[in-house]
């Protein structure tokens, strides 16, 4: 199939077996004012129930979303109401996923935040927020909806930008589907099931957190971090070298606190290797990861009864450790602002 015919086939082709009236009466009217636009008519038709049921089984929610109407609600964006009321003003507006999407978005933010904070306890706050956006943000939600096969089931209507709101994009409408599904799982089952749903589809995906952690001056940041932990000031030592004075030297530098190595880096110059060693040391600190079997999440205390004011004996909970607060300055988020050196107050003993 060529790309043009495929686009026509997939976007405009409408399965008609489940429709009550086909061809539609307005297509065969022979009045002077009769205007029938087949593309608009196709956009207004609901997807076939078999497609909706197959979708619910594909995402493993065949027992949760028992009727096609529930799936249809999750796949209908609120912008579709504008199109529907324009052409069918007398029929009731179809249920949409606006409320569900808001609830689901909040739940996904909760699960992602607590999981990432428990997994990376020392991650700086800005990086944690970026990681949460990467895991459950709008682009990821749209991508997950596409992989689930929800693109032909989505019912929406493109909205141009107004002075008070930006334009509605296809990816924004798609992103509302997984959020609505999360909320439906929460409504039909419990919080633990909703958390399992979000883990299965969002928190198992590949995100490079190391690339989000950037330092303007890693050597200085490391110096201050080591001082905060009251260790000896970091000292870099050349470990291995080869090819000095040639066109391709390699230096391997380690950064030490006393006799403990904090990080190691390589480079084609001494400065480059030292920079990388400091970066490596900071990554080893901020990206320390809790093993999966020692992960404790606050939302696991919400049992079936969801009484948050009394402890449940069934699931004993030991809170995870709170990470050390990060070095605030010399992070690349601040443009050109370097905080002054902290003065250590001398206490008279």
């Amino acid at each position: 199939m060529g790309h043009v015919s495929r686009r026509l086939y997939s976007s405009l082709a409408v399965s008609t077996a489940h429709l009550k009236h086909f061809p539609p009466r307005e297509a065969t009217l022979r009045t002077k004012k009769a205007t029938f636009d087949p593309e608009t008519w196709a956009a207004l038709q609901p997807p076939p129930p078999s497609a909706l049921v197959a979708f619910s089984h594909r995402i493993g929610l065949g027992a949760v979303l028992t009727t096609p109407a529930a799936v249809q609600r999750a796949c209908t964006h609120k912008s579709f109401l504008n199109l529907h009321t324009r052409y069918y003003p007398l029929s009731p507006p179809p249920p949409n996923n606006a409320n569900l999407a808001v609830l689901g978005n909040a739940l996904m933010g909760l699960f992602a935040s607590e999981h990432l904070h428990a997994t990376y306890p020392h991650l700086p706050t800005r990086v944690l927020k970026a990681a949460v956006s990467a895991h459950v943000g709008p682009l990821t939600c749209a991508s997950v909806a596409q992989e689930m096969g929800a693109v032909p089931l989505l019912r929406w209507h493109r909205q141009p930008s107004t002075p008070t709101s930006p334009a509605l994009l296809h990816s924004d409408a798609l992103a509302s589907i997984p959020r609505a599904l999360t909320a439906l799982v929460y409504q039909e089952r419990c919080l633990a099931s909703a958390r399992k749903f979000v883990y299965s589809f969002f928190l198992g995906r590949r995100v490079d957190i190391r690339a989000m952690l950037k330092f303007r001056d890693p050597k200085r940041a490391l110096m201050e971090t080591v001082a905060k932990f009251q260790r000896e000031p970091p000292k870099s030592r050349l470990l291995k070298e080869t090819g000095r004075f040639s066109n391709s030297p390699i230096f391997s530098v380690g950064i030490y606190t006393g006799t403990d190595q904090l990080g190691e880096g390589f480079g084609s110059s001494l400065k480059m290797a030292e920079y990388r060693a400091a970066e490596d040391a900071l990554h080893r600190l901020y990206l320390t990861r809790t093993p999966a079997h020692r992960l404790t999440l606050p939302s696991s205390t919400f049992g079936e009864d969801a009484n948050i004011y009394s402890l449940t004996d069934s699931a004993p909970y030991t809170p995870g450790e709170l990470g050390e607060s990060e070095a605030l300055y010399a992070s690349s988020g601040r443009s050109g602002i370097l905080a002054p050196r902290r003065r250590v107050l001398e206490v008279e003993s």
Partner: protein
Amino acid sequence: MATQHLWRAQLRSYPANGHTAFLPQIRKVVLEFCQHYPSSTNTRTFISNHLERVARQNPHIEFVVRQRNGHEPIARGFYANGRDKVIPLNKLEVTGIERKVELLMDSSGAKIRPLKGARTVESTTESARGVWSGLHVDTPFTI
């Protein structure tokens, strides 16, 4: 050194289908047949006798049967990445038709690319043992 800003609305994760949950990539299978031509006989037999069993065993796939008189029988699979695969069924027996339908159901819809040649490294994560370094061996090479 100029650092790139992280625009939070542009941050995203990348798929890892099967790590935690597996999403079958097949969405819909359409079987087209002709009611009169003899080349569609085996397809009609398959649709009458076996298709319901296959459809019940795979509730995640939407099966569509279309009558298309005067044309050869085909099976068309629609996938989540927007592509489709078409397989002609006119020279197959009933078991062969079932095998082709299974092929459509198992496929990911990705374009078939040659295995040898330009496909050298397909891993998206770093290697577990790290890339070999001549400086980090017991006896580094010396002239």
